[in-house]
């Protein structure tokens, strides 16, 4: 009701904001509805397909109240039913994002075979004055340079496998940013937590030199001190990006593993040919990763992701190619390989635009490898998605 009142108030005052022919409405409302049908064929139980369906709605309201003040509220509403809901104990809890400081989610249906939940994953206001920008609330803080593995992304790590969560989770934080130049900035971020081990406080300095973007970051994240750097530029038309972060435990106890700290680094390159063929390759190094059999990734865990553990193995290789078959149909093939235990993840997908705002996609996620490897003995997953944006 309150939101509705706000909208009405704003609509009435709309004309006062229309300064010239080019200005847009101070209130922007958008979102989408999508239906995702999932079929999971678990390893070793190939005859027991698990089928789930999720109806997923996103609502975004952005209010440009003044030149210097904007509000952003985004809600993620999901209704899920099927085998996973039936077999997974307390599925509603699993489906929620657990790593927020404030509770802003609501389970409105918790049945043995269906769950319905809503959460706010963006809720912030932003103040701007000259070169200064202050953002307070649940927001996404994106410090990554690479497109797949981001050791520098210490506030909002995301799982590459959770591709359905396009917007990725936010963080309850306060961010103060100063634009040092047209292509440079410095920022300080404090992430709220109930205790110090759940908080983070770090600074980032980014600048442009010799047609490269560079960045340096430092601070603490949970139990670790962090120091990192990243760059993004190009070589002969190809994008060339890299990130490196060093994590050192703040306090060392007898049981502390990796007492000397952990280095996580990734480098990637991509190139687009004039016929739309796109090639992308990258490598990830994790000093704390296993050099033998890495042990299976926890695909279904809702544990907080960490840039310290982007892989279980010491090395992971990534390769991707995509191509527009027609301007409306794009095919994509991505793969990740652990070269030490020879397990692999392969994901083909195809997306078709059905109209300006309506699209459909078919994704596969195939896991291969022997027992106790990073990607082995998981199973095969297929997703069929229909999406309407407004």
């Amino acid at each position, binding site marked *: 009701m309150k939101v509705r009142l706000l909208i009405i108030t704003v609509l009435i005052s709309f004309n006062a904001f229309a300064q010239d*022919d*080019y200005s*847009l409405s101070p209130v*922007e409302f*958008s979102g*989408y509805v999508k239906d995702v049908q999932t079929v999971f064929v678990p390893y070793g139980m190939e005859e027991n397909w698990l089928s789930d369906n999720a109806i997923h709605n996103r609502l975004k309201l952005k209010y*440009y109240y003044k030149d210097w003040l904007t509000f952003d509220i985004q809600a993620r509403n999901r209704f899920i039913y099927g085998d996973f809901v039936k077999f997974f104990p307390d599925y509603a809890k699993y489906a929620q994002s657990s790593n927020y400081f404030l509770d802003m989610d609501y389970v409105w249906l918790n049945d043995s075979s269906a769950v319905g939940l809503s959460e706010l994953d963006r809720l912030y206001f932003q103040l*701007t004055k000259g*070169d200064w*920008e202050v953002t307070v609330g649940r*927001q*996404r*803080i*994106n410090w*990554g340079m690479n*497109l797949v593995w981001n050791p520098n992304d210490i506030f909002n790590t995301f799982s590459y496998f959770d591709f359905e969560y*396009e*917007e*990725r989770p936010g963080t309850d934080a306060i961010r103060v940013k100063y*634009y040092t130049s*047209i*292509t*440079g*900035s410095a920022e300080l971020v404090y992430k709220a937590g109930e205790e110090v081990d759940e908080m983070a406080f770090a600074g980032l300095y980014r600048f*442009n030199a010799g*047609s490269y*973007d560079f960045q340096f970051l430092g601070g603490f994240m949970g139990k670790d001190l962090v120091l990192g750097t990243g760059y*993004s*530029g*190009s070589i002969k*038309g*190809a*994008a*060339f990006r890299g990130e490196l972060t060093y994590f050192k435990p703040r306090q060392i106890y007898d049981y502390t593993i990796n007492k000397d700290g952990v280095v996580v680094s990734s480098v990637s390159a*991509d*190139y*687009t*040919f*004039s016929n*739309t063929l796109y090639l992308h390759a990258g490598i990830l190094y994790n000093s704390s990763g296993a050099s033998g059999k890495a042990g299976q990734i926890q695909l279904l865990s809702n544990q907080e992701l960490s840039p310290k553990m982007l892989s279980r193995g010491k090395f992971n290789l990534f390769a991707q190619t995509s191509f*527009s078959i027609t*301007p*409306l149909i794009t095919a994509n093939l991505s793969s990740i390989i652990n070269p030490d235990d020879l397990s692999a993840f392969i994901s083909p997908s195809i997306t078709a*635009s059905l109209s*300006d*705002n309506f*699209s459909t996609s078919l994704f596969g996620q195939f896991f291969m490898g022997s027992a106790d490897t990073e990607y082995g003995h998981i199973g095969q997953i297929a997703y069929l998605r229909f*999406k309407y*944006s*407004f």
Partner: protein
Amino acid sequence: MKLFKLSRTVLILGLSILLNPVLAQSEDATEIVRKSDQLMQGDSYISIMTMKIVRPSWDRTITFKSWGKGRDLALTYIQTPAADKGQTFLKRTNEMWTWNPKINRLIKLPPSMLAQGWMGSDYSNDDILKESSIVVDYHHKILKEVKYEGFDCWVIQMNPKEDAAVVWGKVISYIVKGKYFPLKVEYFNEDGDLVKTHLNSDVKQMDDREIPTKTIVQPADEPNKKTVVTIEKMDFNVNLQDKFFSQQNMKRIR
């Protein structure tokens, strides 16, 4: 503001006297192309355009708002389709960034990505970002004078200068006498084959000048495909500081 408008009108009036075809009878080809370029772009501009990609069985429309200054600075904001709304592109000299509001992320785009057609259309990034200059990068010569679509036109041939990094082997432009807008522009590859034609029409008053507001981009070898670019609104020589084209602004502008 009023004063500014007035003085600009005076300036345009002055210029139009200078440019009067009766007074200036023997213009050279480069001068014509320079005036044409200035007419279509000005020193700076703000515009809202739609681009419709047309194929025999389907079409898709993109609406975007753009700001530009000189050859080096440009900012574009995608208004529709809904799924891409809010995405911005910043171009500064040879570097380009895009900002994705969905995940709050700035990505530096490599040059190879610029070579692609703009969002799957026949309109290339070079067309949108004006990477090359028809004035600076080409030699110009008047081939002939013809009547085209009811207008007296100069037919001007442009050949790239030896050191210019341009994609075309030859460009032929039909520029209307006295009005300086092109009605038809043919682009040839290095072998001299026609690659695409821009057909301009719907001449309208935009801000202080009369220009064609519709461009049909027609690939030569695929007659059933085309891209239609329409200028919905455009103002020239607007007051834009260089600082307007910043990473800070690409996250705020709309």
